[in-house]
């Protein structure tokens, strides 16, 4: 790292960074794609995609056809359920489920109303398609709430308890940070972080291997540049580009279109983003130093990228993962970046809460970059 703090060292870094930026900007196909990823792609993901259960198609097999049965069936309302018509027979309802035309079938038994008025307990059946286990569970959970509320009202009337209330639990649920459960905030941020991660790994890895494949790395090695002065400017250039992309996404799409609150300090957010890109770029460079050609880098980066994207908590709740997997997630820089990004943008958290995430990310970044440099030195030193 000799010469890093001298004037000549700084000038070399500046020149090399400029070279990397020029190289990046001149790849037109790539730049168009880069811009699309930070704008259009995020817009579509934020506006169009929801992980919540919406409009689950419910068919009704009404064997009673009374006022009470219609009342119960009528309570299955949007946003959670939408009616997919009546099923004429149990066979027909199974067929609806088989074909995927209905996700659930509510089966109301004959003499439903009559038995209710006589004070019996009447079972009502719900058949749920659980090929998607999460949706199946959510659908049955909502159905249980709807039926429970209906049953409660019937019981109140029947037992003459109406008015007095009774010793019930009245839960007031408050959802913080996103009170209306507005999906675009979550999906938009998750997608932004996904795009940032993709580019942070791929751009430097690709830039590095290209030099290796074309042999221009040998030219760089015979210059007075140290390995650090070759590697570091690549990271700086990519970091600048990606932070700029993030700013475009935040102020061009998420802010104006979806009213993302951005409660915390934005300078802190951009600093953490830069730190994250640096850390992740180190991973890409490591993959590039290990492999000989771009095809190898391509496969290696998938191996790093996919688990990182899907298992750090960007799209799935981490709490349910097996303990060893959660331990592994602790080594993913994205895990800490997620905590910080949601913390700053939605929760308004400050450095007093985020310092541990930032520290962990920085430690990972320095380690990864150090290992990458050591490899590089061994190959070319």
């Amino acid at each position, binding site marked *: 790292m000799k010469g890093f703090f001298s004037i000549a060292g700084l000038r070399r870094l500046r020149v090399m960074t400029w070279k990397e930026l020029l190289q990046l900007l001149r790849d037109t*196909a*790539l730049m168009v794609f880069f811009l699309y990823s930070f704008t259009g*792609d995020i817009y579509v993901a934020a506006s*169009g995609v*929801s*992980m*919540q*259960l*919406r409009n689950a*198609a419910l068919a009704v097999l009404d064997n009673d056809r009374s006022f009470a049965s219609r009342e119960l069936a009528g309570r299955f309302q949007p946003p959670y359920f939408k009616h997919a018509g009546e099923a004429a027979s149990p066979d027909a309802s199974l067929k609806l489920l*088989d074909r995927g035309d209905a996700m659930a079938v509510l089966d109301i038994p004959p003499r439903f109303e009559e038995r209710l008025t006589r004070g019996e*307990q*009447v079972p*009502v059946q*719900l*058949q749920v398609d659980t090929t*998607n*286990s999460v949706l199946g*569970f959510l659908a049955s*959970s909502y159905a*249980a*709430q709807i039926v*429970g509320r*209906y*049953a409660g009202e019937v019981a109140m009337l029947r037992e003459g308890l109406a008015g007095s209330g009774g*010793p019930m639990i*009245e*839960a007031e*649920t*408050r*959802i*913080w940070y*996103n*009170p209306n459960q*507005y999906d675009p905030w979550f999906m938009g941020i998750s*997608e932004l972080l996904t795009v940032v991660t993709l*580019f942070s790994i791929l751009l430097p890895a690709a*830039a590095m291997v*290209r030099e290796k494949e074309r042999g221009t790395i040998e030219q760089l090695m015979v210059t007075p540049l140290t390995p650090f002065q070759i590697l570091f400017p690549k990271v700086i250039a990519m970091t600048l580009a990606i932070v700029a992309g993030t700013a475009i996404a935040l102020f061009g799409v998420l802010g104006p279109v979806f009213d993302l609150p951005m409660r915390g300090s934005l300078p802190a957010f951009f600093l953490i983003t830069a730190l994250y890109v640096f850390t992740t770029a180190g991973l890409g460079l490591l993959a590039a130093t290990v*492999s000989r*050609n*771009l*095809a190898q880098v*391509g*496969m*290696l*980066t*998938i191996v790093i990228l*996919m*688990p990182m*994207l*899907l*298992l750090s908590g960007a799209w799935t*709740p981490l*709490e*349910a*993962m097996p303990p060893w997997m959660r331990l*592994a997630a602790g080594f993913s820089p994205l895990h800490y970046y997620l905590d910080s990004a*949601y913390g700053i943008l939605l*929760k308004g958290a400050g450095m007093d809460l985020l310092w541990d995430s930032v520290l962990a990310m920085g430690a990972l970044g320095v380690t990864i970059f150090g290992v990458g440099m050591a490899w590089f030195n061994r190959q070319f030193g």
Partner: protein
Amino acid sequence: MNLKRIVALAWKEWREIVRDRLFFALAFIVPTMLMLIFGFGLTLDVENLPFAVVDHDRTPASRDYAYRFISSRYFDFKGYADDERTIDRLLADNQVRVALVIPPRFDERLSRGEPAPVQVIIDGTFPMRAQTTQGYVAAINAAVSAENMAQALSTARGVPLAEARARVQPVKLEVRYLYNQSIKSIWSMAPKLIMLIMMLSPPFLTALGVVREKESGSIFNIYSSTVSPGEFLLGKLAPYVLISAANWFILWMLCLSVYQVPFKGDPLFFTLASLIYVVCTTGFGLVISMLVQTQVAAMIITSVVTIIPAVLYSGLLLPLSSLSPGASLIAHSLPPMYYGRIVTDCFLKGAGAAELWPDALVLAGYAVGLFAIGYLLFSKRPKS
């Protein structure tokens, strides 16, 4: 079309792949590895939610009530907190996701037969998790309320407790889970992982393989040879289709053996549809490689156009019924959604050609279309 030339080209390509040891190994290891990692790690279940309790009442009744949450496997009790201010901090720092606040006079109100308010605070940053959590909380509260009501009724009217229970709950919902009776999330996840991985790996292999020739310049040998564009594409892609088909078979076997997912459908139809899908995703790689000049661009564009649709618009994580019209259009215009349906229904619903032929047909149309585009874009006389 000259079969001999095609075979020669395929053989050349195969040798090239095999000789790059790391690439060859990765081509086979990556899909299996992803299958194992995601199979064990990728779960949408909401469990072990860290939560805290603020108990202002501090009576046996309030502790009993809090214990209902503490003993649930969905919640992971982190301890009692002193006041709401502490909860603020714990939630902002991701230490807890849910907090239960029991106000003073909880016990007093209940024993007087009045409703007792409680407050539940949920971290809403992840709407799906918050929604599921709300479901758990509502279920526990409903159970406690029903029990309290039954007890009150039983003492007031002098009826046995069992009868009182039936009377406060006149309608009982019985849920039957179809196709996946014990709601194992791996059963719904593993088949879709085949879809995800087969969407990622073949385009990557193909795009990199074709662009490699462009960038190194060896494509000029092809341009100046007697090989026709059609022969070149068939010969070039055959090894990649073969590798991907082998990978698909390995993934299928992993689903059956490691994850014990039942396969109820028609294996013949499934094989046929899967081969079409593999050809289709290979075609994706082909078209991308025709459009770009550098391997860097090929790699980055491939990852963005395959990873994002396969994760977001395929039904893997997000329910297709919840997509907005725009996103639904994207989902319908890309192959993963169709194959996702084929793979899930073949495994769990026991469906076959009779139900799924439209999806297979769309995939086939897609494959033909992609190869036609690739053929048209490939010119032996490049402009520059």
